[in-house]
């Protein structure tokens, strides 16, 4: 990863250590940014208030204060709970998050793993978090948690299909599952023979982008799809019995996954680390690529959180109908049209 930048040959174990550390940053930095920018500030402004202002300038140190608060709290386990499963559940969710970040490239030579299956691997490992949620819901030995866990599982299974199908259009157009290949296809693409801005797939795959964003919203169990943690019905669902560090892990997992899904959408539909007008193989992108990707990620995350703070919660039956009767047929039609056009054009 860094050999092209530093012009130094690194041993495999050194590369692995660097990858692990960068991976940690790549998970925590977007999570922190999203929580501060959107959950603390944007939500407050939309509700005509200032949000946290005391800790640091404009409350920028509030995150550290929150982490400190959670770390000091007691790590409670209910007496009737299944202790081992209860304690393992947040880590299963985090494993899914950390595996998800691996496939996203941040520059021509900046990648964790450059594998052939790329986006398919991302969609596969994102489904592991469902098991963590079910474990948490069941092991808490509380009826609120169990109902929350079951709601979450039903919702995540239902919305995984539109998520996968929405990506199919991009994969057909790019002709590869590899994330680096998808970025290159957009960077070197042309719109009716004009290659000025490449061919970001959001133009041709706008339907896919819309379905992807809605499905991501549901996968993150954020409002308006937050029945699994609906606080007015079932306390906080599968999170009800968690406190202290383990609640913090679930919280980080949720926002890190939001950031990573936003980065995935930016890579699939907005051209990833590429900026129009420059040579996509240039070494410059190894320097500015991460910043470009971060900027596009924040743009997509802004959309996701805008919906989150705007719409009221769906009913359970409305949620399932939206997935099975609207999004999936629409995604299938999108695939058929894309496939036909790919062959004809």
């Amino acid at each position, binding site marked *: 990863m860094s050999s092209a930048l530093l012009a130094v040959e690194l041993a495999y174990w050194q590369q692995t250590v660097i990858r692990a550390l960068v991976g940690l940053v790549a998970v925590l930095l977007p999570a922190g940014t999203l929580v501060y920018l959107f959950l603390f500030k944007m939500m407050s402004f939309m509700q005509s208030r200032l949000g946290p202002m005391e800790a640091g300038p404009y409350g920028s140190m509030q995150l550290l204060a929150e982490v400190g608060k959670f770390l000091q709290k007691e790590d409670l386990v209910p007496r*009737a709970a299944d202790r081992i*499963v209860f304690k393992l559940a947040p880590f299963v969710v985090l494993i899914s998050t950390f595996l998800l970040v691996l496939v996203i490239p941040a520059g021509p030579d900046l990648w964790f793993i450059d594998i*052939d299956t790329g986006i*398919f691997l991302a*969609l596969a490992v994102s*489904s*592991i978090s469902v*098991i963590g949620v*079910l474990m948490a819901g069941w092991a808490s030995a509380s009826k609120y948690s169990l109902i929350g866990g079951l709601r979450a599982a039903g919702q995540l299974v239902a919305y995984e299909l539109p998520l996968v199908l929405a990506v199919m259009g991009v994969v057909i157009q790019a002709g590869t599952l590899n994330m680096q290949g998808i970025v290159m296809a957009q960077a070197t693409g042309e719109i009716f023979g004009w290659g000025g801005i490449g061919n970001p797939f959001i133009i041709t795959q706008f339907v896919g982008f819309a379905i992807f964003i809605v499905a991501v919203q549901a996968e993150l169990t954020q409002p308006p799809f937050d029945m699994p943690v609906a606080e007015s019905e079932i306390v906080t669902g599968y999170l009800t019995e968690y406190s202290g560090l383990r609640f913090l892990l679930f919280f980080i997992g949720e926002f890190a996954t939001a950031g990573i899904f936003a980065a995935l959408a930016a890579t699939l539909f907005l051209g990833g680390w590429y900026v129009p007008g420059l040579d996509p193989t240039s070494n410059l992108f190894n320097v500015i690529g991460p910043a470009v990707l971060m900027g596009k990620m924040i743009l997509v995350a802004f959309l996701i959180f805008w919906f989150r703070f705007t719409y009221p919660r769906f009913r359970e039956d409305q949620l399932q109908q939206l997935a099975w009767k609207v999004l999936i047929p629409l995604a299938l039609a999108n695939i058929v049209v894309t496939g036909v056009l790919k062959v004809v054009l």
Partner: protein
Amino acid sequence: MSRPFLLAALAEFDRLDGGEVLVAQNIAFAVVAVTMLVSAVRMVTTRNVVHAALYLVIVLAGAAGLFILLGAEFVGVTQVLVYIGAIVVLFLFGIMLTKGSFGDDDGVEGEQRLMAGLVGALVLCVTGGALIDTFGGAELSRAEPSLTADVSDMIFSQYIVPFEAVSVLLLAALIGAVVVARKD
């Protein structure tokens, strides 16, 4: 479920060690295989159904890991998506919806234990024997992992008829499930 596959993998690795020894792969294989075996045994001996399903997750994840060790990336990822992401989730969903009590189950030690053991041994022998018989002499390409494009080319050219037959079979099963489940 995992055992026949394990035998085939063991045979392959003996063959590979004939030349240059792949130390990292062998260590990784040993770790994955031992984890899988322990989880598989715990899965059938545990008295808690939810725990059994969670042990099954470890076994299936191990199988995915073995596929990746053998260079079959696409199959490994599909294993995660289909088995861990969908099938075990539906298992857990079903168990949690229907199970009344929390904790260990007393009813799992049934009289079907002997029969289950016999069926398990039979499946192990038949699939293990078939795999060794068919792939016993096959050489694994050590240079490159198999490419997804090659896999899809094979599915849609050489194996198009079995692929379509399986698709129709799955569609029939889907329609059958809807017909059985509908009340009106």
